């Protein structure tokens, strides 16, 4: 291996560490108009009138736009384009943008907001998700057909024989769990800068995870052709799902630029970031689990209600993920769930790290722990042997490929000294386990089409440097580095010879962006394929220079159009699942040299490049990735399908103070099966970051509302763990290679978050004997559970 598997320094870190990296707010365009949004002070109200006379008269105010200026609504999913750029006729949450003012200075724009008179008629807000299921005369989205209530989406699926499974269980546990909303809390607030050219072309710099979706939405909402719009993601200060939707402010900034011909800029305050939200759905989960002492998990039934807030966002996907992601990592023959996503008059919820899978995972793992207690079995020992089998199908026809979680759990048990600790620690100290399951990118694209999910273009010219062009967004996770590593490995070049141009819709081929843990698997495979294609050209040149005969036929026929495997359904009973194209050209590309082993001769890479240029000028190839055809034919069969799944194990050790209820997570041992760890530095970073975010949701994070308004819209009141709260971390990530993953890799960005949280809850049970069925597990919650337990005695 040249680069794969080595601790590789992240691209861009030099710029970041010196302060040179330009984030969206750092970009200076000539003489911009600054935009401020007037936001709704009501959770639900009819807009009676908007009087702009005073604001238009203010010198220095150049443009004022309202909902009337936008005909089309938008949304990340084509099936729920229910969000206006600015509220029209009705406001649906406190903080919803209503009027945008563009002025010569920020101060002026801010002050101008005070001069806008809006008359509202307040309506009775729908704040409680359960009440949203009741019949209502005054719905949040009356345009939705066939509804009497505020239901956005109902999904249900059922596989196997649920009743039979419960009948054959030795213990049945069930409970209701409640979760407040949590938010991404990336450090960089949303920001968009628009540069407009003389011929009204828009260059939009935006802090987005998916330039392609912004590109589509701006074009649709503003009714301008896509070729007149270019979206660029500069350096991005964290996303975690919170920057994967197109946003109203992006539409507004582009609209004002079009109307005025001026450059524009809008930057959110931290509070506005909280209003804009798109975080994890608050949920109520009723779950029932049947477990047999010998056969493992028999039946699982979930009734889930998720509170979507005012608009659709990713909600339909979230609804499915709340159920389908429970099918791993255990063998679970009978399985049924239904999920209602309801609208309420609160900031909308959407995708957040671990999308949809986090809260139900908590419920399931806590119930499984309870079942093990009932059965008198060790929860780790019990899990061993009941995991999904490699190369198998789940009841809802997820194709399972590599599985390393069984051996992973054993390793985590050994590292954490589980057997010496579980059930044996003094009162107040505890150890607990939780496991997880996540997708490596969604098999189903949001916009239904046959286009490859990822394309990467690769060019080499006279200087020998490689440039990769990818639409994927590096949002700090290091995807640019990963792409460069693909080329570095295939071509045997040092990382600094490979430049990555990414997330620019004009320069880069379409990529569906950075979400659902798809980039390494999909864009990575595309980059690898591009590199293999250019290697073929270089190999031809090298053989010519070495005056050797290239090996024939067999290798020339290697199908490098990886996506073609999707033409046929894979054979589930075969361990061979399609071609991750092999590099078999008889040459070694290493250290900028290309050598032929048998003849023992080599040529310099740069000379080979120059010979290859003789074939037809600059080398210019494209690699693509499309996931194989997967899944069943029932309704919703596409939800949760992925070319590969990551699985993880968490063993957490806690200290619970019985007199204060305070929980301190002291140590965590994590096994995450990401297949081959391409860059251990990045893998560890993702796992440690997931642990941080999981810790926050477990112990302290929650969005609080007062009458629908976000009451803790600040980093002081929305509690994110500091360095002091972090536990000691032990990481294991040596899963077996994934056959279809680029160099054997799978997902690492999200899957590890979910199982960590229940492992803490289960450790709390081991420590003090109380079952927690709500988050966050703050000290007061634990203490009152302890008191309740004492009272029962």
């Amino acid at each position: 291996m040249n680069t794969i598997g080595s601790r590789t320094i992240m691209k861009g870190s030099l710029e970041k560490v010196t302060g040179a990296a330009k984030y969206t707010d750092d970009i200076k365009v000539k003489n911009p108009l600054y935009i401020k949004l007037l936001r709704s002070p009501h959770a639900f109200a009819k807009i009676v009138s908007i009087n702009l006379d005073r604001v238009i008269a203010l010198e220095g105010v150049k443009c004022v736009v309202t909902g009337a200026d936008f005909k089309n609504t938008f949304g990340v999913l084509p099936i729920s384009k229910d969000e206006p750029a600015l509220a029209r006729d009705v406001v649906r949450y406190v903080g919803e943008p209503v009027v945008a003012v563009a002025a010569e200075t920020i101060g002026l724009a801010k002050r101008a907001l005070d001069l806008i008179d809006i008359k509202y008629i307040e309506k009775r807000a729908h704040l409680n998700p359960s009440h949203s299921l009741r019949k209502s005369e005054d719905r949040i989205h009356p345009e939705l057909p066939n509804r009497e209530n505020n239901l956005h989406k109902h999904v249900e699926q059922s596989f196997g024989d649920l009743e039979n499974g419960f009948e054959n269980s030795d213990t049945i546990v069930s409970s209701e769990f409640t979760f407040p909303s949590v938010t991404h809390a990336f450090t960089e607030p949303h920001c968009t800068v628009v540069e407009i050219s003389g011929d009204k072309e828009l260059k939009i710099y935006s802090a987005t995870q998916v330039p392609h979706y912004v590109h589509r939405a701006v074009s649709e909402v503003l009714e301008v052709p896509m070729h007149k719009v270019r979206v660029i993601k500069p350096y991005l200060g964290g996303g975690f799902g919170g920057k994967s939707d197109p946003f109203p402010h992006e539409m507004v900034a582009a609209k004002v630029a079009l109307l005025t011909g001026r450059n524009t800029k809008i930057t959110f305050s931290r509070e506005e970031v909280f209003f804009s939200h798109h975080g994890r759905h608050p949920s109520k989960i009723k779950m029932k689990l049947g477990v047999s002492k010998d056969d493992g998990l028999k039946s699982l039934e979930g009734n889930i209600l998720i509170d979507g807030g005012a608009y659709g966002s990713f909600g339909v996907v979230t609804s499915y993920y709340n159920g389908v992601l429970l099918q791993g990592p255990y063998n679970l023959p009978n399985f049924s769930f239904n999920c209602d996503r309801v609208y309420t008059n609160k900031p909308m919820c959407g995708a957040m790290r671990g999308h949809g899978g986090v809260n139900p995972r908590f419920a399931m793992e806590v119930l499984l722990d309870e079942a093990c207690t009932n059965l008198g079995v060790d929860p780790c020992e019990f899990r061993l042997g009941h995991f999904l089998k490699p190369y198998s199908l789940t009841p809802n026809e997820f194709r399972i490929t590599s599985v390393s979680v069984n051996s992973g759990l054993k390793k985590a048990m050994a590292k954490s000294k589980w057997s010496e600790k579980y059930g044996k620690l003094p009162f107040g100290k505890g150890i607990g386990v939780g496991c997880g399951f996540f997708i490596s990118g969604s098999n189903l694209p949001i916009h239904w089409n046959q286009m490859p999910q990822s394309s990467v273009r690769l060019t080499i010219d006279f200087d020998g440097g490689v440039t990769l062009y990818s639409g994927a967004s590096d949002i700090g996770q290091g995807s640019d580095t990963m792409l460069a590593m693909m080329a570095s490995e295939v071509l045997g070049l040092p990382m600094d010879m490979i430049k990555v141009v990414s997330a620019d819709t004009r320069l880069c081929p379409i990529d569906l962006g950075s979400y659902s843990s798809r980039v390494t698997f999909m864009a990575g495979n595309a980059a690898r394929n591009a590199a293999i294609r250019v290697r073929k050209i270089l190999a031809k040149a090298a053989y010519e220079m070495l005056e050797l005969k290239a090996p024939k036929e067999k290798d020339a026929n290697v199908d490098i159009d990886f996506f073609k495997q999707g033409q046929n359904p894979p054979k589930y009973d075969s361990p061979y699942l399609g071609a991750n194209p092999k590099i078999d050209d008889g040459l070694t590309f290493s250290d900028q040299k290309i050598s032929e082993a048998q003849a023992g001769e080599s040529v310099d890479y740069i000379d080979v490049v120059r010979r290859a240029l003789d074939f037809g000028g600059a080398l210019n190839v494209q690699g693509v990735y499309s996931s194989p055809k997967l899944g069943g034919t029932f309704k919703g069969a596409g939800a949760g399908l992925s070319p590969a799944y990551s699985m993880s194990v968490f063993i957490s050790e806690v200290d619970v103070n019985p007199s204060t209820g305070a929980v301190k997570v002291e140590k965590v041992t994590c096994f995450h099966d990401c297949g081959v760890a391409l860059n251990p530095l990045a893998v560890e970073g993702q796992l440690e970051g997931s642990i941080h975010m999981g810790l926050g949701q477990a112990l302290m994070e929650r969005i609080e509302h007062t009458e629908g308004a976000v009451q803790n819209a600040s980093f002081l009141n929305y509690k994110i763990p500091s360095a002091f709260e972090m536990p000691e971390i032990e990481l294991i990530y040596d899963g077996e290679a994934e056959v279809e993953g680029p160099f054997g890799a799978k997902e690492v960005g999200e899957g590890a978050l979910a199982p960590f949280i229940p492992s803490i809850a289960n450790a709390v049970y081991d420590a003090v004997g109380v079952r927690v069925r709500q988050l966050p597990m703050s000290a007061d919650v634990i203490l009152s559970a302890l008191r309740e337990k004492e009272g029962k005695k």
Partner: protein
Amino acid sequence: MMNHSKTKLFMPGNFEEMTSTVKYLEKKGEKFQFIAGGSDVVPRMKDSKKNQGHMVSLKFLKKTSSITIKEDEIHLGSFLSLDQIASDSALKEACPIIGKVASMVGSPQIRNQATLGGNILVDNRCVFFNQSVFNKDFHHNCFKDGGSQCILVKGAKANDAISCRARSVSDLTPALLVLDAKLVVKSIRGERTISAREFFKEDGIAKNNLETDEVLISVIIPRLHKSVHYKKLTVRKTLDFPSLGVALAKNEQGFEVAVCGIFSMPMYFNFVFAGGKSLSSSMEESIKNVTSAAPVFKQDFFPPKYRKEMLGVYIKELFER
């Protein structure tokens, strides 16, 4: 004349210049407030819709702010940064609790700029008041913001004994109360020394006995050689204001305790255990006295019931240290 109403930061170079600035502003009838480290004043300035008036810098106090340890007293200049207090080795020797508490305030950067005076005078906080203009508008402004309601207690009146329930959140104050510190304040009218125990008021708006033109210049701590302990309830070990702060000193007859974070003023109690009673029943009684005297206000991450219970737990724990 154009600039007549435009607010400004005045940077007087010494006390005399400051007094003439204050006189000038008072004469013109213009609002002003003092600013030291800025960590409390600046966010409030950003959160305010109304013109907050001029800022008068107290930076000139920096020159004269020092730590002086005498045989019977310790003098601390009010412009000392919390970090200076936390890292002074002589002070650590003479009165360890002050530095220890100072090191528990805010974050490292905040401790480099926040001052001792600023911590003692830190404005009372309420989740409904310490909000952006937007959020305050949403709630139609409370008493503390010049409005006509308390959002926390519906039906509260402006002329109630306690109209505002914004909480006292100064970490240093409980320790200073137990140590019986004196505060030296100075104005055009001269200098006066007030006992910390008589300095604070029961209301979240009025909060203390400092006149608008008075400046806290130093803190005097008598060297009583008390062993004071402090415990703070927060979600995180950094940044958070105290949800509850308890300072306690044990003595032969009983204990002294002071509390912040739960009520609109810091509270001080001196418990002398009656002879013949067991220690535990004396403790129970004392804790009952404290908790009944201190109504615990909401508007915090932790619910009032929990903080009330923790008050007892903390007192016991500190007593047993």
